[in-house]
């Protein structure tokens, strides 16, 4: 019989978990900000900025909590602006370059549905801070799902060209999806303890809701090819370093600047 009673979840575990979720939100928010003034319409400039703002708000809470729990006393700003690339724990999906608008929408579709399921489950966490953040965030990301689904259908079931681009976006994004649902010792331990959520158990629901959108959009679910991984261990893609440099540029030139 497994001796699960002997296992204890530490503050460091919860900090490491909050850091993963916080880094995901931080970098996806940063990517979406790149669309501002470049989106197809001004309404989309606003939508991207508003979605990015939600993600930034979630990142601030999660990173602040991680710094509080890991014993280092680092603030949300310390964690965002003074870590190096290998110290970030976000999945690779969120750092993929924006590509064309369809590719960004494919990434939004994948990530928003994942986070809605994640935060809905995490709202039941035994940890009051994670539960409070998740209850709030699950309402916010429901809007992100709606935004992504509307665009996926509009582009997928639109013209021949928009359909081709939307399918290409989905095809290019899909290899980054499995990493979202990867399980490891940390998330399994937190899940058994009722503090965190093992994302592996969200995959079936995700497939169901995303497939429904793709089918309405007359798009095909890509066949499995290669798959990305390594972000949770700090191994990132080539596109990540310039992104971190841009995120941290003001802090590097004017440490501690505020306005």
């Amino acid at each position, binding site marked *: 019989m497994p001796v699960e009673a002997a296992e204890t979840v530490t503050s460091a575990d919860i900090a490491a978990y909050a850091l993963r979720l916080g880094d995901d939100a931080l970098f996806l928010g940063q990517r979406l900000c790149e669309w501002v003034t470049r989106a197809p319409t*001004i*309404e989309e400039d606003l939508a991207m900025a508003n979605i990015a703002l939600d993600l930034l708000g979630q990142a*601030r809470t999660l990173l602040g909590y991680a710094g509080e729990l890991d014993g280092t006393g680092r603030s949300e700003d310390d964690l965002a602006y003074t870590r190096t690339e290998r110290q970030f724990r976000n999945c690779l999906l969120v750092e993929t370059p924006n590509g064309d608008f369809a590719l960004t929408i494919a990434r939004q579709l994948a990530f928003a549905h994942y986070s809605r399921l994640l935060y809905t489950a995490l709202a039941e966490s035994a940890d009051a801070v994670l539960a409070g953040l998740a209850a709030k965030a699950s309402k916010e990301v429901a809007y992100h799902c709606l935004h992504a689904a509307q665009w996926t259908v509009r582009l997928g079931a639109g013209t021949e060209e928009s359909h081709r681009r939307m399918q290409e976006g989905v095809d290019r994004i899909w290899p980054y999806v499995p990493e979202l649902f990867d399980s490891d010792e940390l998330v399994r331990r937190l899940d058994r303890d009722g503090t965190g959520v093992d994302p592996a158990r969200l995959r079936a629901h995700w497939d169901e809701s995303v497939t429904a959108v793709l089918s309405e959009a007359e798009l095909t679910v890509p066949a499995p090819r290669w798959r990305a991984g390594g972000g949770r261990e700090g191994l990132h893609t080539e596109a990540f370093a310039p992104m971190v440099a841009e995120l941290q540029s003001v802090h590097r030139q004017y440490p501690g600047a505020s306005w």
Partner: protein
Amino acid sequence: MSTGTRSTANEVRRLVEALPDPELPVISLGDLGVIRHVAPADDGVMEVTITPTYTGCPAMETIQGAIRAVLSECGHPDGRVRQVLSPAWTTDWISADGRRKLADNRIAPPGPAGVPLPVRIGLGVPCPNCGSAATRPQSPFGATRCQSILVCTACHETFAHMRAT
């Protein structure tokens, strides 16, 4: 300092609830439903507990600063503002008075939060200018995080709608 110069929790509450929302100054923080509690904490320090409308709401820092100023004026220079996320804020907490003030300023107030999302972003919202129900979303995910922009096909005016959440 004598306790006589320090306002009670109820007096502080009345003042902070009357502060205008920085983004929608026609309604107050009390109308918006973001002031959760005003009471002395365990250490005796006066504490105002607020809940953000959205985790990334850029108005929260302005709101916290305005509340701290009220605390100081009320004889609580050591007063604290505590932010809580749970229970999550909902547009259902906006008072009847707040809804009327929004409508008076041609911002269509939110419907109930429990309805499907497409309705919450503005389908079927009547025009606050002419009352026509023939309106359609123009910018469902902006201007700001909490509002959509709709256009009325009857009077051709655009108007803001506060989205239910």
